[in-house]
C-alpha cells in the first residue's frame, strides 16, 4: 500500500505529476473539441431540417459516415490522411518535407467530426420539439430569420438539447482516451508509460479508470448546475 502511494505521489519518486499533466491534456482536448463539435453539429442540424433536398442529403451523408465509422478509424484516417495530404502539397514547394501532424490537433479534428454528427441528431430532435408557431410569432413581430433563430429558437433549443448534449459530453470525455494511441500524452498514455516502467499495470490503469470516473462525476455535477440554470424559467414541478 505504501509502495503504491509512493508510486502515485508527486515528485521524483512518483508518477503523480506526470499523470496530473495527463489529466490536464485530457480535459483540454475535450474542451477544445466541444465548441467545434457544437457549432458544426448545429449547422448540420439546420441543413437536415431544411426543405432543400440536396442540402438535407449532403448533411445525411455526413452523419452516416461519421456515425458509422469506428472512432478509432476516424482518428487514424485523419491522422495519417492529413499527413499524406499535407506531404503531397508540401512536395510541390519543398524537396523533402518533414511533416509531423500534432496529435492534439488530429484528435480535435476527429473528435469534432464524431461529436458534431451525434450532436446534429440531438439538435434536430430539439428543433422538431419547437412548434412552428414560434417561428411565425417571430416573423409576426417583424424579426428577421436570423433574429428569430437567435432570440426565440436558440434559447429554447439549448434547454431542450441539454440532456442529450450532457450525455454526448460524457461520451466525448471517454473518446479522448483513444487519442493516446496516436501519441497524445493524456491520462491513458501517461499511466501506460508509468505501468510499463514500474511493472505495476493494474495499479496505474486502475488509477486511469478512477480518474475518468472522477471526471465523469465532476462533469455530471457541473452539467446538473447548467441544466438547472437553463430551466430556471420553467414552472417548478
Amino acid at each position: 500500500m505504501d509502495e503504491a502511494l509512493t508510486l502515485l505521489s508527486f515528485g521524483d519518486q512518483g508518477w503523480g505529476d506526470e499523470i496530473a499533466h495527463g489529466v490536464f491534456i485530457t480535459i483540454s482536448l475535450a474542451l477544445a473539441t466541444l465548441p467545434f463539435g457544437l457549432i458544426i453539429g448545429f449547422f448540420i442540424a439546420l441543413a437536415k431540417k431544411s426543405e432543400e433536398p440536396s442540402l438535407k442529403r449532403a448533411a445525411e451523408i455526413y452523419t452516416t459516415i461519421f456515425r458509422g465509422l469506428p472512432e478509432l478509424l476516424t482518428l487514424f484516417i485523419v491522422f495519417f490522411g492529413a499527413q499524406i495530404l499535407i506531404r503531397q502539397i508540401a512536395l510541390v514547394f519543398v524537396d523533402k518535407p518533414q511533416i509531423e501532424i500534432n496529435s492534439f490537433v488530429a484528435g480535435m479534428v476527429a473528435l469534432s467530426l464524431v461529436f458534431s454528427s451525434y450532436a446534429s441528431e440531438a439538435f434536430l430532435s430539439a428543433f422538431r420539439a419547437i412548434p412552428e408557431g414560434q417561428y411565425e410569432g417571430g416573423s409576426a413581430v417583424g424579426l428577421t430569420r436570423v433574429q428569430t433563430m437567435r432570440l426565440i429558437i436558440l434559447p429554447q433549443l439549448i434547454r431542450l438539447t441539454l440532456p442529450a448534449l450532457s450525455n454526448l459530453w460524457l461520451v466525448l470525455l471517454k473518446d479522448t482516451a483513444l487519442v493516446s494511441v496516436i501519441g497524445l500524452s493524456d491520462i491513458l498514455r501517461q499511466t501506460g508509460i508509468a505501468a510499463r516502467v514500474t511493472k505495476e499495470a493494474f495499479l496505474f490503469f486502475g488509477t486511469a479508470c478512477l480518474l475518468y470516473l472522477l471526471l465523469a462525476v465532476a462533469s455530471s455535477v457541473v452539467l446538473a448546475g447548467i441544466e438547472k440554470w437553463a430551466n430556471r424559467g420553467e414552472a417548478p414541478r
Partner: protein
Amino acid sequence: MTYVSAPPPPPRRWTRSRLAGNGLMLFWLAAGLALAYFLVAQYDAEFYARYTPKFFNGFLVTLQIVSLSLIIGAAVSLPIVFGRTSRNPFAAVPAYSFVYFFRGTPLIAQTFLVYYGAGSFRNELDAVGLWWFFREAYYCVIFTFSLNTAAYQAEILRGAIRNVPKGQREAGQSLGLSRWAIFRKIILPQALIIALRPYGNEVVLMVKGSAIASIVTVFDLMGETRRAFSRTFDFQTYIWAAIIYLVVVEVLRRVWDMLEARLTRHLKRITEAASPDEETPTQHQPDEPPKIEIALPR
C-alpha cells in the same frame, strides 16, 4: 361543372440553401470520385491478392468478438438488472457500481486494465488456473467487452422494464400468477419490444467499439488494417477498412429497422387505407398538371 387546368408550378428558385446544398453535394461527389480515382490509381494486384484474405479473416474475427460479447453480455446483464431493480442494498449497490464503472470509463482503459493489469496478478491467477485465459489478448478482449456491454444492456433493459405500465403487473397479480411468471410472460416480452431500438444502437456501438481490440494485438478488421498499413504505408488499407465498417453498420441498421417493423406490426394502427368512397375521380397523367375541379358560377 367545368374543368380548368391548374397553372404549372413556378420554377424552383436558386435560394441560398439550394446553392449551399448543391455545392455540398458536389463536394461529396468530388470526394467520392477522388477516392475512387485514388483506389484505381493505386491498384496493385499483388496487394489485393495478399491482403484480401487477411481482411476477410479480420472481418470474421470482428464478427466473432462482437457476437460473442453481445451474447455473453446479454446473459450477464440479467442478474445486474435484478440487482438494479432490487430494494435490497446488498444487491443494488454492487449492481449500481458495476454499471457506473463500466459506463463511466473508456472501453480502451478497461481493456488495458484487464489485459495488462492481469499481469500484476500472474501468480494468483496461475494458482487458480486462470492464467491461460488472461494471457490471451483475445480472451481478455471478449471478457472486457462482455462486461462493458452487459452494463449498457442492463441499463437498456432496466429502462424498458420501468416503461411497461404498472397495470400489466397488477393484472398478472390479480390473475394469481407467480412473480416469476409475471416477469417472464408479461413484463419481459413487452420490455424487449421497447428495448429493441436501443439494443440495435448497442449492437452498432459494439461493432464500432470492437476496433479497440486491435490495440491489444488482436487481429480483427482494424488490427489487420493497421498491420497492413504498417507494412505497406498504403493509405488504401484504411479506406477499405472504412468502407467495410460503413457497410456493416448500415446493413445492421437497415436489418434492425426491418426487424423492428416486423416485430411491432401488431402495435401499428392501420393508416387510412383506401376506403371505397375516397376514390379519386380523375387519373391524372404524370406529364400534365393535375386537373382541379372548380365549380364555376354560371
